[in-house]
Structure formats: structure tokens, C-alpha cells
């Protein structure tokens, strides 16, 4: 037998042997101790580039607990994975409406406020959130808005959602804008333009919104939830429906990028940090310690400074620069805030929304 073949046989036997060893030897062991000590390593399921890695390092130095970050790119993915039975996560970062869903499904563990002294740092507004009053299950993490980002040197500030839904075929931006590829967000924009509640379960209203969305396809370059900010910064598109933090993130690539919320209103969303009920007591304790750490004023300021989203932490706000706090793109002024709505889950109607959005997508361009 040739040398190479012997090599291959040896290599594969080694691998098989290793696997057999693995089968016999390594088994996960998790013996719960009598007294609850925090786990030494926990996993957080988070959006990507949402938490400054420095913070993990600082936390480890202070408490000795290592935090490993897993990423997901949509609430739905995270939810599906947990619903399917995935375990091992000590912390998760769902958005507001996903928190409501998970609460209903009993997937969240109630937080032990004794372990969260820094909870007092939160702004009043964030201690009485509609979907989790009293912060029973979650602690707000970052919040932001959904609006329109555009190139200020190439077009006027869009003051109304009409720029998307009733585009002027002669305008520069016609054929050069995108909408979010997100069923609830897209419908929210349409519904708010029509003057309806963005959590409407009225079939007639939804049908109207659907028609509007189909109409918008005329000038739409596409649906994009991931790259839209890069495309605007690169000049490929002139405006995009998107989240404020994303636009701010690419500001250094193109300083002409601006963000605004149309006068009809928009969406305000809050991301939260919670503990799934599949976490072991050790993991839960460690998770709560981390949440408490995040609620610290300085850490909260670091967080916002790093990912350009607004902080729910009043104490952190005192540390953040005036420039940041007065930036309307990050902190909308009170009159704008009043026009913003939270997306809430609509039960069985989620499937209706999804179906209508599918119809929008497969409808021919008008």
C-alpha cells in the first residue's frame, strides 16, 4: 500500500478513535451544589456588535465570571431556537414584543431584584414599560427608534412617509430607496402613515396597508434589514427605512448621512436583557450579577458610547456627553417621542401579517 494511503488510513483511524473516546469519555456534568454559587462561565445570546467586548473583560475582572457571546440576527431565530428546546443560555437579549411573547409562553425567569441594586439607575420611564411593568422579567438594555436615513447633500429632509409610499417618479430618489425586510416594521410604517394603530388587528386596515406597501414597490430598490445603511453611505441608495443606531454607526463613512422620523410617527423599540427559565440557578445568579453590572452608570455610558443607541439608564445619561444626549437622532425630542408607538405581539394575527407581507412581496411591481 502506498505511503499516502497509509497516511490516510492512519488519519481516519485516529479520528474515529478520537470520536470513540469522546463517546466514552466526555459527558457533560452538571452537579448542582447545595449553596447557589454563580456559574463561572455563562453564555449570553445577543445581537452582534451590541455589547462592547471591554465590558465583558471588565466584568470578568471584577467577578471572575467569563461571559461568552453567541449571536443571532433576528428575534424570531432566537425565539425559535429556544422554543425548540435549546438550553445553556444564561442571558438573552430580546426586543420588546418578543419579551411579551416569551412571557406568555412562560419562557422567562422572574428576576430577583435583591440581586439588582443598580435597578434604581433606570429612568422612570423604563421602570414602567407596557410589556413588563416593574421590570419583573427583564431589564431594558438599549432603546431606539425606526425612521428614515437619507443623504442630506442629495435630497431634502423627508418629512412624511409619503416619500416612500407615494414616491414621485421624477425624483432623484425614485428607485433608490429600501424598506426594512421586517413584516411588523414595514406594516408599522404603512399603518402609521394611514393614521392607524400599528398593532391593528382590523382586517380592513391591514388590507389597506398592504395595498400601500404594494404601491411603494414601484420605486423600491428592495427590502433590506441588514445592509441598508451601508448602501446609503456608499451612495448606492439615497434613503432607507431603518433603525437609528445603524445609521449612526456608518456616519464616519459618509458624514452627509442624516436621520429623521416622519411627522406621522414611527416605532420606538426597546431591547431587553432577560434570563430564560432554562437557566440553572447558578447561571441565573451569574446572569443577574451581569445585569446589575450593566446597570452601573459608567458601564451603561460605555455601552451607549460604543453602539450609538440610547440608554435607559438615567445615571448613565449623566455621564454621556451633551452632544450625544442632544442628538435628535439618538434621543428624539419630547414632541417626536409622543408620536412613537411600541410594536406589540398580536397573537394569531401574526400569521395574518406574515401572509399579507408575503402577498406584498409576490405582487408584481405596479
Amino acid at each position, binding site marked *: 500500500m502506498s505511503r499516502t494511503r497509509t497516511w490516510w488510513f492512519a488519519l481516519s483511524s485516529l479520528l474515529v478513535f478520537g470520536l470513540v473516546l469522546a463517546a466514552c469519555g466526555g459527558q457533560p456534568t452538571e452537579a448542582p451544589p447545595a449553596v447557589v454559587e454563580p456559574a463561572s462561565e455563562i453564555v449570553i445570546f445577543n445581537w452582534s456588535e451590541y455589547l462592547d467586548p471591554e465590558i465583558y473583560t471588565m466584568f470578568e475582572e471584577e467577578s471572575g465570571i467569563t461571559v461568552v457571546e453567541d449571536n443571532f*440576527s433576528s428575534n424570531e431565530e432566537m425565539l425559535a431556537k429556544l422554543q*425548540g428546546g435549546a438550553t*445553556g*443560555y444564561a442571558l438573552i437579549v430580546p426586543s420588546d414584543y418578543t419579551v411579551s411573547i416569551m412571557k406568555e409562553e412562560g419562557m422567562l425567569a422572574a428576576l430577583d431584584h435583591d440581586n439588582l441594586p443598580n435597578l434604581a439607575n433606570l429612568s422612570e420611564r423604563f421602570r414602567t414599560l407596557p410589556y413588563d411593568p416593574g421590570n419583573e422579567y427583564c431589564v431594558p438594555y438599549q432603546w431606539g427608534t425606526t425612521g428614515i436615513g437619507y443623504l442630506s447633500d442629495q435630497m431634502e429632509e423627508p418629512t412624511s412617509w409619503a416619500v416612500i409610499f407615494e414616491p414621485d417618479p421624477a425624483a432623484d430618489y425614485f428607485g433608490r430607496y429600501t424598506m426594512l425586510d421586517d413584516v411588523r416594521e414595514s406594516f408599522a410604517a404603512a399603518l402609521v402613515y394611514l393614521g392607524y394603530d400599528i398593532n391593528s388587528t382590523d382586517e380592513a386596515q391591514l388590507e389597506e396597508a398592504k395595498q400601500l406597501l404594494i404601491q411603494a414597490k414601484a420605486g423600491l430598490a428592495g427590502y433590506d434589514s441588514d445592509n441598508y445603511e*451601508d448602501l446609503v453611505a456608499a451612495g448606492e441608495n439615497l434613503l432607507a427605512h431603518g433603525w437609528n443606531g*445603524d445609521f449612526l454607526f*456608518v456616519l464616519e463613512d459618509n458624514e452627509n448621512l442624516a436621520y429623521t422620523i416622519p411627522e406621522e410617527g414611527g416605532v420606538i423599540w426597546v431591547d431587553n436583557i432577560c434570563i430564560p427559565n432554562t437557566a440553572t440557578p447558578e447561571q441565573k445568579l451569574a446572569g443577574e450579577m451581569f445585569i446589575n453590572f450593566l446597570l452601573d452608570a459608567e458601564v451603561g455610558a460605555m455601552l451607549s458610547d460604543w453602539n450609538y443607541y440610547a440608554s435607559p439608564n438615567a445615571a448613565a445619561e449623566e455621564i454621556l456627553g451633551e452632544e450625544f444626549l442632544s442628538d435628535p437622532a439618538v434621543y428624539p425630542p419630547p414632541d417626536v417621542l409622543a408620536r412613537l408607538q411600541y410594536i406589540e405581539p398580536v397573537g394569531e394575527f401574526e400569521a395574518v401579517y406574515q401572509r399579507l407581507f408575503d402577498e406584498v412581496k409576490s405582487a408584481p411591481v405596479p
Partner: protein
Amino acid sequence: MTAPQSQVRDLSPARMGRQARQQPGSNPWFRLRAALGELALGGYGLLGYLFFYLPILILVFFSFNASRSTAQWTGFSLSWYAEMAGDQQIILALWNSLFVAIVSTVISTILGTLAAMAMERYDFVGKLGMDAVLYLPIVIPDIAMAIMLLIFFNLSGIGFEPWRLSLFGVRLAVPFSVIIGHVAFNISFVAVVVRARLANMDRSLEEAAQDLYANAWKTFRRVTLPLMMPGILGGALLAFTLSLDDFVITFFTSGAGFNTLPVRVFGMIKRGVTPKINAVSTVMLAASLLLVVISIVFRRGGDDSKIDFSL
């Protein structure tokens, strides 16, 4: 005893033209056509490879981009490589990807080849059913398979926590849940490729070996297996590539804290995939090309019957 040389090379237009020349009554027109044919084929091959490498060139190019955009070029910089080198998560994810890919490729190639042999060589009770079962992993939508594996692992108590073990002083975490999923779909791909190979195979060689009193195992090892090799290696190559790039199944079946490169990258799409990933891909590309170059050099003076895609 050597098996016959592979003869498809003889089907190249140049060779066929030469043969035509040697025959009585051939004319220069044949030779011209053959030469043109050879040129056209060669040119086509070149174009084909350019097509495949075009996005790769772009990808490599942007890995040196000064800004974080993968959309516009702003200047030359090595910062992404520096960032990649310092990013333990990414390197760990890369290692995980390779590990899962190699292990699942080895297992699925062996199983798939055996299955292909059985399917192609024998008629037996339940063959149609087995046919269907072998095609199912290819036919099933990714996400359905991912979710069903997730639920199955949960319900059956198999779980997702990687097996942690020490092998020769190296600490390993074997993500069996991910590997199981990868093997499941790779078996089918390997089987299909190997079957395509087997379908054409000339049985007379094996029968000749049997006539010379070789037993079944010897026949297999000395005649059948080498003849099948191109198919097996082709299937293995395919399995490796598919496993390396898999996202959906890996995402749903991996335990908390376990990430492969595609899972990490897909997780990044929300905030923008930075050129750091371009850098990772470029490094992987360079490493693969380096391996190929090494294997050329290593084999230059070597025995031609080494592992080969052909005889």
C-alpha cells in the same frame, strides 16, 4: 498489475485530431478543427475559472479596505487582519468549522460510499424505500430539518452540550449535535456523487480479478476502490464544502457557546459584516492554496499511485 490508464484525456480535441491524422484518408481540415477545438476548450476553461474567482478577488481586495464598508473602497489598510488576529471568537469559530467539516466529511464519505455501492450494485427488498430515504436529506428544506433536529435532540435527551474531552493533551469540545446533522445531509450528497461514478464502471476488471482467485475483500481493495476513488474524493470534497458553509442547521443544533464561522458571520449581518470576515476568508483561501502548492511540490518526485482523483 496496473489498472488501465484513464482514457478520457484521449478525448481531448487535440488527441482526437492527432488520431484522425494517423488514419488513412484524413485531411487538414480535421487537424484545424481539432486545434481550434482544443483552443476553444482551453479558453473556456480559463473563463470558467475566472468567473469563479471574480468575487473572490473582490473579497480579497476589500479585506484591505481602510473603512468598515464592504461597499466602497476608501484606502489600503491591514487593520482588519490585525483585528482578526486579536479576535479569539472568530478564530475559535474557524477552528470549530474546520473540525466539524473534517469529522463530518470523513464519516459521511465512508457511510455514503458504502450506501452507494449497495444501491448501485444490488437489487434487494426495500431498495425503493432506501432510495427515497437517501434522497430525503437533500430534498428537505434546511430550516425544517434544523428545527426537527433541535426538537428531536431535546425530546430524546441527547442534548446539545459538546462533549468535552482531552485528547493528547489538547482540550476538545466535540459538538456531536452539529456533526450528526451535517453527516445526515452529507451522506446523501456523497452517495449521489459516488453512484454517478459507479454507474459507469466497467465490471470486467473486477470480474477478471475474481477469475484470478482474488477474494471479495482483495477485489474491493485493489480494483473496486481505486476505480471508485474519483467519485469518493469528489463526494468528500463536496461534503467538506457544504459542511464548511452550512448555517441554518448548525445554528439551530449547536449548543450554547458553540459557534462555527457561518453562524458568527450570519449573526453579524445585522450590524454589518465588516471586512474582518473578508480577512478571515482571505486567510482561509491563502491556507488552502498553500496546501495545494505544498502537495504539488511534495508529489513532484513521488509515486503516481498516491491518493489521486484518478488512477
